[in-house]
């Protein structure tokens, strides 16, 4: 058996998590308006303690964040299966560079991804926190 055939469910899950994270932050950094389709009407976002529900409102919140451009630099991605729902829990840490700012901000974020009928995932839960120095 070659290595790929031996790849277990957990490894596949990790690949999905990594692919999602890269896609999410790439969109965030290049085209924030395109994030809304990653959420559904049941989705929840906690952004620095502020709670927002539903794809439309979440999309608006993200689009209205008080900066034009930013860049996420990802340090760690951890994932685990989320039983009783078939989802994936993803835990990210890294740095955030805001345009014009001298120093990067550290952040952590967690997602619960739920599979869609079409074989992809949507974000059901999203919690973001800056980690102050």
């Amino acid at each position, binding site marked *: 058996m070659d290595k790929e055939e031996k790849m277990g469910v957990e490894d596949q899950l990790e690949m999905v998590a990594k692919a999602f994270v890269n896609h999410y932050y790439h969109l965030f950094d290049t085209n924030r308006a395109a994030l809304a389709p990653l959420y559904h009407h049941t989705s929840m976002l*906690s952004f620095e303690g502020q709670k927002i529900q539903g794809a439309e409102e979440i999309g608006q919140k993200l689009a209205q964040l008080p900066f034009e451009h930013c860049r996420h630099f990802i340090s760690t991605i*951890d994932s685990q299966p989320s039983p009783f729902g078939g989802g994936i829990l993803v835990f990210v840490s890294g740095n955030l560079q805001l345009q014009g700012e001298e120093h990067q901000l550290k952040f*952590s974020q967690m997602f619960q991804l739920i599979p869609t009928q079409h074989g992809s995932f949507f974000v059901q839960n999203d919690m973001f926190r800056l980690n102050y120095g």
Partner: protein
Amino acid sequence: MDPDAVAKAFVEHYYRTFDSNRAGLANLYQEGSMLTFEGAKTQGAQAIAAKISSLPFQQCIHNISTVDCQPSGPAGGMLVFVSGSLQLAGEQHALKFSQMFHLMPTPQGSFYVLNDIFRLNYA
């Protein structure tokens, strides 16, 4: 009961137990529980308790800065997202950390930890 209050109560209980009686954490996990601690994966209450008990320090104190929570789905679970700092006995500087828990209800009306992911946030 207010979910935010439940999450806060759980977090306080968890870190108080961690800081005073690490072996006592075993009761908060079950067979299907998963822990990822600084990238190292462990499964099952016994193995998780052994992992936590064997961490290379005697005393520590967790100081919690933020607790966020959201319901995880129809099974009644709760996602809890914590950030704070960790003071190890004898170390001069506190370490910053983030942790997420996925809590599931027990028949007795409390919660156990199904998923647990811990990361230090280096400077």
